[in-house]
């Protein structure tokens, strides 16, 4: 069999695999359809180039296999051809780059009405902090984290008092409202990644990173850690529940604020003192 046939088979096989593949994107559940579009665009242009190059190669292999005394072209350079190819490639690259940059510009500019959610990541788990009624998260430092202050909120920051603390790995979000995810890591790198939302960003100890998306499909989504963070990396999962405004409200009203937590701890302390006293 002529090797060209096998190479042809590889190209055709790749195309067929692409057409019939059962493995494809999860259904998108956020506003980042534009990312899928840019992937598609890259796919068509890039895939086209791949097919053309490979077919041309296969053609050459068939047409110009070794034959004693075959007339071979001797043409070291062809400036016109090279120029055309350079320009065509440049145009193709610009066509790919420009939309990408536009989408990226949206990605780093968070809309004003975005709901802030701080994600705390550690080896190996997640918890969340939402701003209270003032809509502002209090400042926090990981060094201040203690049993009484699980998020390390600065006690002298008034914005932090009404922050809603969720010491659980299930996050609820409401549909059609942009969310700005602020990532804070306690120890090593992590990455809060929901495939259906497309967006992702690393959590880095020492700084706060962010990204945003707008969930637009009600449902439950699995969160995967997408930056290697030690032996528990693969097991570092969480859950996001996207729900209607009504359900979200009832969920959030059940959650505890930072001042609730402080009050409860004071109570406990008092109780303990009382118990101790009573026992005396």
């Amino acid at each position: 069999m002529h090797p060209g046939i096998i190479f042809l088979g590889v190209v055709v096989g790749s195309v067929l695999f692409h057409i019939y593949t059962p493995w494809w994107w999860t259904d998108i559940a956020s506003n980042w359809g534009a990312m899928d579009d840019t992937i598609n665009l890259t796919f068509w242009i890039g895939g086209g180039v791949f097919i053309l190059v490979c077919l041309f190669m296969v053609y050459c292999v068939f047409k110009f296999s070794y034959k004693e005394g075959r007339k071979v072209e001797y043409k070291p350079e062809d400036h016109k051809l090279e120029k055309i190819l350079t320009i065509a490639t440049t145009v193709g690259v610009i066509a790919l780059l420009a939309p990408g940059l536009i989408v990226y510009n949206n990605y780093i500019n968070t809309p004003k009405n975005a709901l802030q959610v701080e994600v705390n990541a550690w080896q190996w788990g997640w918890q969340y902090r939402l701003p209270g009624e003032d809509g502002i998260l209090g400042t926090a430092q990981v060094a201040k984290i203690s049993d009484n202050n699980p998020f390390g909120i600065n006690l002298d920051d008034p914005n932090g008092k009404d922050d809603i603390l969720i010491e659980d790995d299930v996050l609820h979000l409401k549909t059609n409202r942009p969310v700005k995810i602020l990532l804070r890591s306690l120890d090593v790198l992590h990455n809060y990644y929901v495939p259906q939302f497309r967006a992702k960003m690393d959590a880095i100890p020492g700084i706060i990173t962010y990204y945003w998306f707008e969930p637009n499909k009600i449902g439950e989504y699995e969160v995967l850690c997408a930056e290697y963070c030690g032996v528990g990396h693969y097991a570092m999962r969480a859950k996001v529940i996207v729900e209607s405004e009504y359900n979200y409200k009832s969920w959030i009203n059940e959650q505890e604020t930072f001042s609730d937590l402080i009050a409860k701890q004071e109570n406990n302390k008092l109780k303990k003192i009382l118990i101790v006293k009573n026992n005396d």
Partner: protein
Amino acid sequence: MSDEYNQKNAPLEAQSSDTISGTSGTPSKDIDYVRPAELPEQDLYHGHSFITKWIFCQDAKIIGVQYFLTAVFTGIVGLVLSWLMRLQLGYPDLVPFITAEHYYQFVTMHGMIMVVYFLTALFLGGFGNYLIPLMVGARDMVFPYVNMVSFWMFFIAVCVLMASFFVPGGPTGAGWTLYPPQAILPGTPGSNMGIILMLVSLSLFVIGFTMGGLNYIITILQARTRGMTLMRMPLTIWGIFTATALAMLAFPALLVSCIMMTLDKMLETSFFMPTIVQAGEVLDYGGGSPVLFQHLFWFFGHPEVYIVALPAFGIVSDLISVHARKNIFGYRMMVWAIVGIGGLSFFVWAHHMYVSGMNPWFGFFFATTTLIIAVPTALKVYNWIITLFRANIRMNTVMLFCLGFIVTFVNGGITGIFLGNVAVDIPLSDTYFVIAHFHMVMGIAPLMVIMGAVYHWFPLVTGRMLSEKLGKWHFWFTFLGAYSIYFPMHYLGFIGVPRRYFEMYDSPYVASATGLNEFITLAALIVGFSQLIFIYNIVSSLSIGKPAGKNPWKANSLEWLTPEVPPAHGNWGEKLPVIHRWPYDFNVPGAKEDYITQTTPPSEVISAEVEKT
């Protein structure tokens, strides 16, 4: 590239004696004239005992073989590690001793071994040492002693690396990128002795490589033979040269990050370590920046990709040209593309860090520079396939590997455009798409070239041909197998499967890929085992292979034109060769044979219409 051209049109070219000698402008009549030697003959060291001849040897050819064998040995270790990883991914629980700790150690060691200790050492240390002096017409590397030390430094680095398998806690499991803080914190396997040995080994590698790199660069720049201008060097040499230059400038960043991380680990400095709360305790670190490490690492890491790729580009150009019996198309453009890619590669590093939390505005800059680099790369691909057009292609094993390279490289290059474009990268980064991409483009594609190069140059090194029949089987197993590992793997990335997962659990979309994972594992095992054909071919051909004779491929370049095959110490016997043309004069109209070697003077092929290029 021809003398006729230089004589007539380029007053400043080396061959026109009049301008240089200042002998009053009368053009030289002798068309075979080549400028006299600038430098005296190289003073060579001749080993006499077994030890100075074969072990602490100062002959670049032997050092090249030493590098090659050591690199291949580590490569085989890396291959076995990859099997273990694939077994876990395809058939979890099948091999009981693969725990999550071990899995991550395998991932790390596999990555580091393959990128640094296998590919870099093989291309630059192995092929570089063997081919540079031969192809530029030098007697040896310019500093043979330093070259010898370079190899032994590399050898020690490999030993230290291998030692980390046997220390308490095992080798590091930090991922080949060794990102702090996790690389040096408990919670990552091998975060004590493992990571320290890794950092020490890398530092030794850098030091050793610097010694070798100085040799490669200076031999190419300052020790060429008469008539060998830069623009007459085979592209192999251009690729190795540019890659070495990149290495000389990129490895410092690795060395610096290794030193700083070692200090972070051993002295508890806080270069890369911010305030960290681990297991409820605030550690003694504070104020450092993990992202700084990533910048330093990728300032090394991205040029490193080209350190592996550029020699492959160069070598494959030569192989294609020789076996298609046609000049390489657009030689000048190929050279400028290699140099341009090399230069640009220092301005694209942070495309590995789009989702790393760096300054978000960097995305624009790095996406743009990254896609600019796609242009010269694409041009190289065009030139390779245009070289095949209207050629006379020998369909032997070497050519098959070249074709395999083109397919895998184009595939991997195009997925590179996905990942270089920042908005497209965001959903795909840290998924299996990335793994598939870089294995295709800097794993399989360079491997194809390495194997093609072994089939091509084995006759030169040993004087015997490899078996074509076995070679073809080896090629098809390797190429089809590897392609079917990595092509479908991109689709795992589309689903969103993150990389470095020890186990997938039961996420519905991830679970749908179980069958695919099993298939990939099987393919990986087959590809791995099919390398036994290759090894058998090499070992058996050493004794029963067909004697090659001189220049079995009818190539033009200098390495085939030594008085003895395999070339002896000092390479050229009595007299250094004199070069009259570029190495790609195949099928020149009017010439009797279908090739004109570089040493053929114009007067001997007076009827050939050698063209200006």
